[in-house]
């Protein structure tokens, strides 16, 4: 199937988050992680969730992935309620979560082996294709511990892409990497997104990163986790994280972030 055919038979609302709330009860206290969060993501959209740590971004992503269930509200994927994890929505974590007992190629093939309709030869070809896409075809037989942090995240990206999910959920995937590696990956992910037309939700606490990658930036505030504001970033792609236009957008988001974090202070200032 070509990308166009795949796109033809889907609804424009790829993901709908409807009034989702979530509490975590621990022995000491109850944390109100998400409070009445609603969000709609269109097919093929690149949405960034940004906010300080602890504002429920990961929780929301896990709920969308089906790894956790909301205490109130629901999530729809293609109009159907999400009840558990599914191959249609692949997750990429901050730590690569690659399996150290498998080599690079077998890691990428893990999800493919769970598709019984594929032949082994096809699985191998698909895995090799995605390894090539992330530029690591030479490392197919390498062990995981032999890779650098950036390479690990590339393999994790290939592993997430290989079963061909329509939705990619990324939870601060580049947060542990150095600035240079990160910039390379910004380029890679934009290219892959453009080529394969995925719907991507990308969590980060880095406002500039969010402005660089997202069509839309959703700003969260903590205690309880809420959506405060949304920003559209309509800059042409591929975007350079160091460009001046981008800086304008990220400054605007940054101001809003500060305003929501300390409303009492900004009220005095303005």
């Amino acid at each position, binding site marked *: 199937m070509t990308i166009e055919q795949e796109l033809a038979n889907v609804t424009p609302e790829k993901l709908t988050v409807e009034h989702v709330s979530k509490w975590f009860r621990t022995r000491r206290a109850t944390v109100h992680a998400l409070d009445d969060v609603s969000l709609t993501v269109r097919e093929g959209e690149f949405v960034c969730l940004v906010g300080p740590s602890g504002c429920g971004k990961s929780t929301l992503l896990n709920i969308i*992935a089906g*790894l956790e269930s909301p205490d109130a509200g629901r999530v729809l994927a293609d109009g159907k309620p999400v009840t*558990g*994890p*599914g*191959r249609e*929505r*692949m*997750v990429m*974590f901050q*730590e690569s*979560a690659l*399996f*150290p*007992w*498998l*080599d690079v190629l077998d890691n990428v093939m*893990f*999800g493919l082996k*769970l*598709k019984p309709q594929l032949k082994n030869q096809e699985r191998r070809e698909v895995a090799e294709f995605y390894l090539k896409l992330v530029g690591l075809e030479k490392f197919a037989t390498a*062990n*995981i*511990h*032999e890779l650098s942090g950036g390479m690990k995240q590339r393999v994790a990206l290939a*592993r997430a892409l290989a*079963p061909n999910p329509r939705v990619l959920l990324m939870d601060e995937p580049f947060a542990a990497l150095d600035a240079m590696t990160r910039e390379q990956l910004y380029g890679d992910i934009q290219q892959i997104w453009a080529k394969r037309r995925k719907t991507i939700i990308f969590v980060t606490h880095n406002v500039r990163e969010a402005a660089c990658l997202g069509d839309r930036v959703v700003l969260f505030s903590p205690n309880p986790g809420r959506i405060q504001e949304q920003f559209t970033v309509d800059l042409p792609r591929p975007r350079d994280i160091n460009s001046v236009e981008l800086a304008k957008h990220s400054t605007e988001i940054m101001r809003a972030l500060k305003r929501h974090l300390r409303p009492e202070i900004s009220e005095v200032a303005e």
Partner: protein
Amino acid sequence: MKRGLVVCGFAVLMIASWEIVCRLKIWSPVLLPNPLAVGEYLAQAIRDGTLWQATLVTTKRLLIGYFLSILFGVPLGLLTARFKFAEDTLGVLALGLQTLPSVCWIPLALLWYGQTEGAMLFVVIMGSLWSILIATDNGVRTVPPIYARAASTMGSKNFHTWIKVILPASLPFIVSGMKQGWGFAWRSLMAAEIYVTILTGFGLGHLLHYGRELNAMDQVIGVMLVIITIGLLADKILFSPWEKFLHRRWGTARN
């Protein structure tokens, strides 16, 4: 190659100093025979087949008991790690029984099974089963939960997750538990063979026992050397490949 030379050189040095000590005549040759006498005993025992026979009997008991321990220990360990009920029952039982020195099973085994192969097997299994079970349980509990989460997003569920994710992820623990279990099995079997005479087969422990009865120190030392050699070989054949694989994959190699 160089390591081989070092090992051989060290062995030669040990035997040489043994010979020197003998020549100094500090102890009577009845208590400390020279290397040649021990060598002669071994050569003769190999020729008349007793040594070969005893080794065969012992390793057969050991391998059967040990593999039964793995066969039950690993799945039961998975069970205690997975189900709270199994943890509170079987898990506690395993913890308790593991502290029991395996020699302590011998009287019970004799009363239950008499002087039979069954008693031997029972002692070997009781010696190694619990440590394998506990190591597996431990290994599973230390697996980072993110592995199972990642697998579940790729469509892995229940049984598949256990076999393809949890089990291999805890392999380093399981292998070291298997190694420890092997040590316990080996020790308990030797204790049992020295302690009990079983008419269906004379093992190395029995040879050792009769060496003492006959005051044949060359036999005692010779059989001890054979037991050491088997221990070393088992380590090389059974565990080295696994450990090499684990070190290579996980990147925990020493050199």
